[in-house]
């Protein structure tokens, strides 16, 4: 299943996230007008999410590990925003 969402990150920018998953994540693409230093970190995060169980708890674990990375500087994008977007891809958001 392939899902695409646009979420407003509490850090200020709109994130456009595409997730292809089927029990586990096949691919995640994170796009938007945010800043990340070093830039390659976002590519690595996408790579780290590949193969992870399509489940909020597992995804959160990967994100938390990513955000504890030394020297990472993010502007306009946050753990909360990313998690919201990825959760929305899984269809676990409150539909009401």
């Amino acid at each position, binding site marked *: 299943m392939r899902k695409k969402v646009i979420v407003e990150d509490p850090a200020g920018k709109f994130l*456009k996230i595409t997730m292809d998953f089927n029990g586990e994540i096949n691919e995640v*693409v*994170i*796009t*938007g*007008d*945010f*800043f*990340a*230093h*070093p*830039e390659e970190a*976002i590519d690595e995060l996408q790579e780290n999410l590949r193969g992870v169980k399509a489940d909020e708890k597992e995804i959160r674990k990967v994100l938390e590990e990513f955000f504890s990375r030394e020297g990472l*500087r993010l*502007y306009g994008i946050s753990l909360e925003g990313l998690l919201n977007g990825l959760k929305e891809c899984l269809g676990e958001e409150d539909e009401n």
Partner: protein
Amino acid sequence: MRTRLLQTGHLSAATNMAIDETVLRRVASGEAPPTFRLYGWKPPAVSIGYFQSLVEEVDLEVCEDRGVDVVRRITGGGAVFHDAEVTYSAIVPQNWEAIPESIPESYQFICEGIVEGLKDLGIRAHFQGLNDIAVGGKKISGNAQTRRKGVVLQHGTILIDVDPEKMFTLLRVPSEKTRKKLIKSAKERVTSLNEMLSKSMDFEDVVSALAEGFEKSLRLEFDRTQLTEEEMSEADELAEKKYATRDWNFMR
């Protein structure tokens, strides 16, 4: 080591971005001195941020019809329509002069040169975090930074004129209603030198004011030079092999 200033005139999108990266590489290797550059875009171009998707952000058919270039930057941030503006880049070692280590502070450190240049033109602008310069609450300059190999590359635009209608014709938006809203909002939030000064500003005059603004705020005197032949040929090759390719521009 002295800092040089390059004035490279109006070039294509791929060449402009390739020159910035070539200079970054050479500053990192010590082959080039700390460098500031002032330039423009011909043809006009849309650049997108490193993390954006070209097909999602830009109406490629309209751009092609109107002869507008498109290119992905190595810096993050949003889509920019480069037409009547002066663009600058500052490519300096992370420990150059008094440049702060912190990213937000280093944005401001470099942007103060633009504020100084604008003052000389009669505009009282101020830095507005993270990466804008505003006058009377309206944005007149947007900036973006990357740090690679111990080098800070910051580039940004100073608007001579602004045309929100044209800009949002080139960018993809979800609906016509949204387009109208975005145009209205840009007219309220973005200004230009021409609008502020009620006259038509000359590219070269703005370039001179900005060059002097940087010198004054950074307390240095530039060596006014040109790209070396080696740099130019490296940049031409990089333009062709990276910035003009589908692989790079359609990466996301």
